């Protein structure tokens, strides 16, 4: 038994290593702006990988994942700011910042997990919704968080020993983002494929049956929340490093919903799907913006479309994927694309168990 588990874990770790090296190599092919986008994708991926486990495997809908990212960002900003005051720099400052991010996000995630353990679907979604709405109030009331302006984050320059290899700061930030994402997501992949993942599916499938099998649903749910919060916190720290700022405006409800779009469109419960979704939610707004500005619309039309058209497209995607491909893109690409017509035909037969999430 132990042998099979460790070999599976080894497989996941090896695959993660290969993908990380590949991503690091890819940064050399990209210009500065693309590297910046890659870093943002990696940061969002940290959050979506946790969210996809939370929603897809345990069935807990969190609308407040942006808050967990914000916690990571503020944790990093506070700890790194403290490090600057005591004259730390380089790796030590970075490490202290990351510890700060993990501690703050983990603490808030733990509290949410306690709530999640007791609450069913709509109640948890509503609670996390209220949390997102209250975030700007928290940042303006708690001293040291800087109100609406947020906090500045110390700049991370390219370290001297890497300066001959890397050609821009953006590339170094992309490296940080990729390495942090690898550290954040690999444990989630191991969790998902192991016993913990099985327990999560069991709790989502049937809580009473899971309890009969000796699983404590509350514990499984709150652990899933903490795991998701930790990786979201790391994502928030990366985003803070890349943008050199953390403010409540960046982590509003719209961003939370964007994370949800990423995991649903990518395919709930699938880590690869979360990666695809993260690329989509970072690149599509930029693509649509470029498209609308290049068409040459009148100024007021363009102003109305900016920001809104993207939300329209994402909302439509969310509905379309849920109704037509409950498994998301990751399943659609895995040979289901051709079965669209069959699926539509089967709808008259109500007994086909169509599940949005992985069981």
């Amino acid at each position, binding site marked *: 038994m132990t042998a099979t588990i460790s070999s599976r874990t080894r497989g996941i770790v090896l695959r993660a290593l290969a993908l990380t090296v590949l991503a690091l190599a890819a940064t050399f092919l990209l210009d500065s702006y693309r590297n910046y986008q890659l870093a943002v994708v990696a940061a969002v991926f940290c959050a979506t990988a946790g969210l996809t486990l939370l*929603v897809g495997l345990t*069935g807990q*809908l969190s*609308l407040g994942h942006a808050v967990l990212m914000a916690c990571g960002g503020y944790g990093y900003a506070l700890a790194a700011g403290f490090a600057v005051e005591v004259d730390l720099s380089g790796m030590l400052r970075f490490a202290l910042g990351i510890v700060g991010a993990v501690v703050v996000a983990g603490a808030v995630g733990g509290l949410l997990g*306690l*709530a999640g353990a*007791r*609450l*069913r*679907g*709509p*109640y948890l*979604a*509503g*609670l996390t*919704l*209220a*949390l997102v*709405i*209250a975030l*700007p*109030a*928290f940042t*303006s*009331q708690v001293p040291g968080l800087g109100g609406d302006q947020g906090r500045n984050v110390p700049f991370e320059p390219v370290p001297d020993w890497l300066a001959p290899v890397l050609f821009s700061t953006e590339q170094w930030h992309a490296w940080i983002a990729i390495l942090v994402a690898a550290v954040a997501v690999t444990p989630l992949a191991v969790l998902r494929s192991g016993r913990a993942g099985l327990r999560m599916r069991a709790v989502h499938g049937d*809580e*009473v049956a899971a*309890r009969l099998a000796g699983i404590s649903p509350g514990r499984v749910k709150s652990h899933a929340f903490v795991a998701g919060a930790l990786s979201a916190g790391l994502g928030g720290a990366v985003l803070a490093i890349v943008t050199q700022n953390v403010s409540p405006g960046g982590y509003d*409800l719209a961003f939370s*919903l964007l994370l*949800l779009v990423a995991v*649903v469109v990518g395919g709930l419960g699938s880590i690869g799907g979360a990666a695809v979704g993260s690329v989509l939610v970072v690149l599509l707004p930029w693509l649509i913006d470029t498209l609308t500005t290049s068409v040459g619309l009148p100024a*007021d039309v363009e102003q*109305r*479309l900016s920001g*809104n*058209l*993207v*939300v*329209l497209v*994402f*909302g*439509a*995607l*969310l*509905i379309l994927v*849920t*109704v037509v491909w*409950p498994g998301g893109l990751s399943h659609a690409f895995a040979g289901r694309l051709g079965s669209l017509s069959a699926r539509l035909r089967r*709808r008259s037969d109500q007994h086909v*168990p*169509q*599940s*949005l*999430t992985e069981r």
Partner: protein
Amino acid sequence: MDRLAFLLATGLARGLVIALFALSLVIIWRAARIVNFAQAAMAIVAVYVAFAVTQATGSFWLGLAAALVTGAAVGAAVERWLIRLVPSTTPLPGMIVAIGLVMVLQSAISIAFGPKHRPMAAPFSEQPFSVGGVAVLSPYDLFILLVALGVVAVLAVLFNGTTLGLQMRASAMAPEVSRLLGVRVPRMITLGWMLSSAVAALAVLLLVPTELGLNAHSADILFVHAFTVAVLGGLDSPSGALVGGVVVGILISLVTGFLGAGLAPIAVLVLLTVVLLVRPGGIFAAKEARTA
């Protein structure tokens, strides 16, 4: 003391609108066992229609009628053409589709009408009466109070006193058995959606004159407050929603008045957390099935 009385009165007026919106959440919960996260966005669509009608005819009452009719129509359309396509074995897909609908409706409205707030005039004066030198409710607040009480009374009669209400509750609780007994379950669920979104449209229409104006996001905060109320009172209880609405309205008003507006969202969050942790199903909720 004057200040306290004033804040209590303002809180009561605000709480009644929240209560009315929370009632719409209770209706849809009783009729279909779901929490409709798209309620606010759907209501905003109806209120835009009401706004257009009021602008064209100059009559608030025609606008109000238009809001009710459009609200019901939007509810029916969403249920028939969207929610029915979604598997309902777990609440998750329905919630995700509702969130997608919020994004589509709000962005479509923002694209069509721009980001500016359109002010709406109230049908009655918003100048508060003064009793013994203390400003209390305005005629408009009294109007909202009457409407809210009227809606609760009508719903109480409908759900508890008529065959239709019984059929609606039965369809929600035990669809299979109801179907066997000859209840047209899909029709009952559509009716529940229509009723619920008409009430939501009414609540938002009453809210808009007291706020900045009409905008795609005018009802977002109202939804969060109403959800808090619905949870506080239990999603099953209309009178719980009414009491909860007044409690939350007064809480917000007192916190805003004595501690600052910035703390109001935190107060709501704390209240919601405490209630959910102490009674996960709401204070007035009846016990559901045992799970262990």
